[in-house]
């Protein structure tokens, strides 16, 4: 089958690769880009373990083709930490024991990242609804809620910190 060249920004870096039209974005990221953070937990678009951020939106990367992301900005879990400093959501999941086996975690983190950008001061119910596209079998979600609350608080506090000269 003929391949197409697709070009996009992944975690801030421009990438250009030959893919089949049918290559799913999740396989493009995991196999071609060696970014194995996004995981595959189902084939019916239910579990959310493959969630990435495309052009400012949370998207299940198993349900779009790489060719659909031509020119897009794609953020994966590997792009959350900046300069070796963990993002507040990563810090929150660590502090609040929001993970056990870790398989759902990258999808949870990338989703929580966007959720908090859209809703910086959420209620518990809003968090549960906001994270309802991501399944977890280990934690029962209770500590994930606390992790997101931790991150929300940290992001609000960091936003109010005076900028050092």
């Amino acid at each position, binding site marked *: 089958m003929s391949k197409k060249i697709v070009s996009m920004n992944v975690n801030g870096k421009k990438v250009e690769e030959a893919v*089949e039209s*049918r*290559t799913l974005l999740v*396989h493009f990221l*995991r*196999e071609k880009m*060696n*970014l*194995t*953070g*996004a*995981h*595959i*937990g*189902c*084939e*019916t678009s*239910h*579990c959310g*373990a493959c969630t990435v951020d495309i052009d400012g939106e949370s998207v299940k990367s198993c349900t779009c083709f790489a060719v659909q992301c031509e020119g897009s900005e794609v953020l*994966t*879990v*590997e792009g*959350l*930490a900046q300069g070796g400093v*963990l993002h507040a959501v*990563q810090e929150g*999941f*660590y*502090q609040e*024991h929001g*993970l*056990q*086996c*870790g*398989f*759902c*975690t*990258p999808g949870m*983190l990338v989703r929580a990242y966007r959720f908090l950008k859209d809703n910086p001061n959420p209620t518990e119910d809003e*968090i*549960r*609804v906001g*994270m*309802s*596209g*991501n*399944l*977890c*079998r*280990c*934690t*029962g*979600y*209770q*500590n*994930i*809620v606390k992790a997101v609350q931790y991150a929300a608080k940290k992001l609000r506090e960091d936003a109010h910190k005076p900028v050092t000269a």
Partner: protein
Amino acid sequence: MNAPDRKAALQGMGDSRLRKEDARFIQGKGNYVDDIKLPGMVHMDIVRSPLAHARIKKINKEKALAIPGVIAVLTADDLKPLKLHWMPTLAGDVAAVLADEKVHFQMQEVAVVLADDRYIAADGVEAVEVEYEELPVVIDPFKALEKDAPVLREDLAGKTEGAHGQRYHHNHIFTWDAGDKEATDAAFKSAPVTVSEKLLYPRVHPCPLETCGAVASFDPVRGELTTYMTSQAPHVVRTVVSMLSGIPESKVRIVSPDIGGGFGNKVGVYPGYVCAIVSSIVLGRPVKWIEDRIENLSSTAFARDYHMTGELAATADGKILGLRTHVIADHGAFDACADPTKFPAGLFHICSGSYDIPAAHCTVEGVYTNKAPGGVAYRCSFRVTEAVYLIERMVDVLAQKLNMDKAEIRKKNFIRKEQFPYTSAFGFEYDSGDYHTALDKVLDAVDYKALRAEQAAKRADPNCPTLMGIGLVTFTEVVGAGPTKMCDILGVGMFDSCEIRVHPTGSAIARMGTITQGQGHQTTYAQIIATELGIPSEVIQVEEGDTSTAPYGLGTYGSRSTPVAGAAIAMAARKIHAKAKKLAAHLLEVGENDLEWEIDRFKVKGNAEKFKTMSEIAWAAYNKPPAGMEPGLEAVHYYDPPNFTFPFGIYLCVVDIDKGTGETKIRRFYALDDCGTRINPMIIEGQIHGGLTEGFAVAMGQLLSFDAQGNIQGNTLMDYFLPTAVETPHWETDFTVTPSPHHPIGAKGVAESPHVGSIPTFTAAMVDAFAHLGVTHLEMPHTAYRIWKELKAHGLTH
């Protein structure tokens, strides 16, 4: 630093320290099987049967082989010369690796396609053509035992002796019993009150978020086989692979890397693993196989499918005199149950529960049907989910019959604190427990009296839009398999192991024979060692899962890690501790009797200034051992537990059922667990949340059903109920601590308790909601649909 600060700095036993393994997971740097890429690796995908029972007439590989990039297509015929088309199971049966002349269940493996990448492998699978001749299908295990039922296992024709005794029918696998039949029958004959109930524990599936898979890599130059595998028992797999392949065990390496949840789904050896290994040996290249979710739900180890009849005999005022139970166990097409060899029904005979029952007897009959093999999985502790469900349901049935309060009847029948260690009518020696204290704690915490009053008021109000139910379960489970005299897997005793090596500069590395799948062993195991040896848990490296480096162990399932490996860890650490004491005495020039241990150092009694820390001792071990002492500071211990352990819990659930739709709101769930000594309360709480959530899913929505043609239903995540954060209730956790007297650190294990205990709690609450209408049992799952039917039957709907 003062003593409390030094203790805190260790972050040892009892500390809710954050997890050491998190760093890689939160940065997307976990190493799961599908993350592994080896040079020259090819991909394998599986052709599966669309039919539940059929003869294979012809397999046409041509179209598949014509696809560019398809390397090979293998069937049972290709495995026959290697005698690998069938493989032994953990239960003394055989299972097909690739269907040999007939298929026994829908989605059974028929052929494998090897290709350059997974996309081409999938194209290859679609292109393989298989001709079938349909055979009559058997789905109902009761019908399977009828005289003229279709023969499922033609390969067992004429074999009247199975692995577990006589087989009395071509679809019968075994009959197993425990307890005293005569005494029990006598108790029932003379009892003033008897109750009986049919209880189905339906077929469900553990469904970990990561499916099963393997990367098999045979090195033809070295003659060595390495296989990365989603396995909860890598050493056992290594032994089995060596036996099946003929490659010496020393040249077989199984690696369980990071595993995305196991829950018992990843204990057995699946055809996919065997075919990947065979393919790698044949091709001399690495072969990756990763199943998808439908394959996982349809063909890997399911759980339960126990058709139970429970009976209790009692006095008129609710004292239980006898327990009797009979089970038809639907094992699917092959008996692949992951049980210790001598226990074809696992530890089901814990079904006398938390109660002092003088006479008891249980019988379990295994049956073949046209379904995928399995049965023992899903946080079950070897059928303890079934056993606890049975006894807790029966106690409620008895309570309702006698119009007794469900908490009162339990108090009346509890094994009392003074009776421990307690030997049950089935021969289990319960190590420790204090059920009365725990129950009172829960009833107080939820204000049980007020709940019952509220329920009474609501029952009296015909306009109340909901039915309110209160479910109470007081369970004891048995974990920590187990003493080698009783427990073995394929002949290997169920001990476990730990090897610890302290480095010259005072940090340490430790390896165990278990394998974490999210339970936090890298943290909790380090915490045990930290307290035993006075080395901060932060600098104790814990490794599991690589059979080339870890000492032999039986793996992680059945909540056995803390009871067995945890004990091995403590014992190995104590060997080091004993050597360290000798070294300290030598360095301080005193006798060992002059020394006392305090947190992280040996001090000379009465002279606080003279001490040696473990760190200093470690350095000395490598350059200043006394005459006659080996250098180094390490130990290994293989621990054969003297007994199982018996964690227990008290769970209470309040439900409100919407009369209009049948939907149930879990208003409150209070879970008190006693797992003995608590290593890391934060991790325990996380395990409880997870087990309760899986229990909620089982009780309220999960089911793998089959139609009359044997087509499996509900085998995608569209239908198989995995609750999101929205459906999942808020959990309240509590605890008591009753250490196990026979365990070196008094710990019992906990991770399966919330699953074992919560499922009957939900059913109890649902039944309790209808109890005033004479309902004594409701079958799981308690979906809105089923509950609405029950509401309608009682005239409660519009």
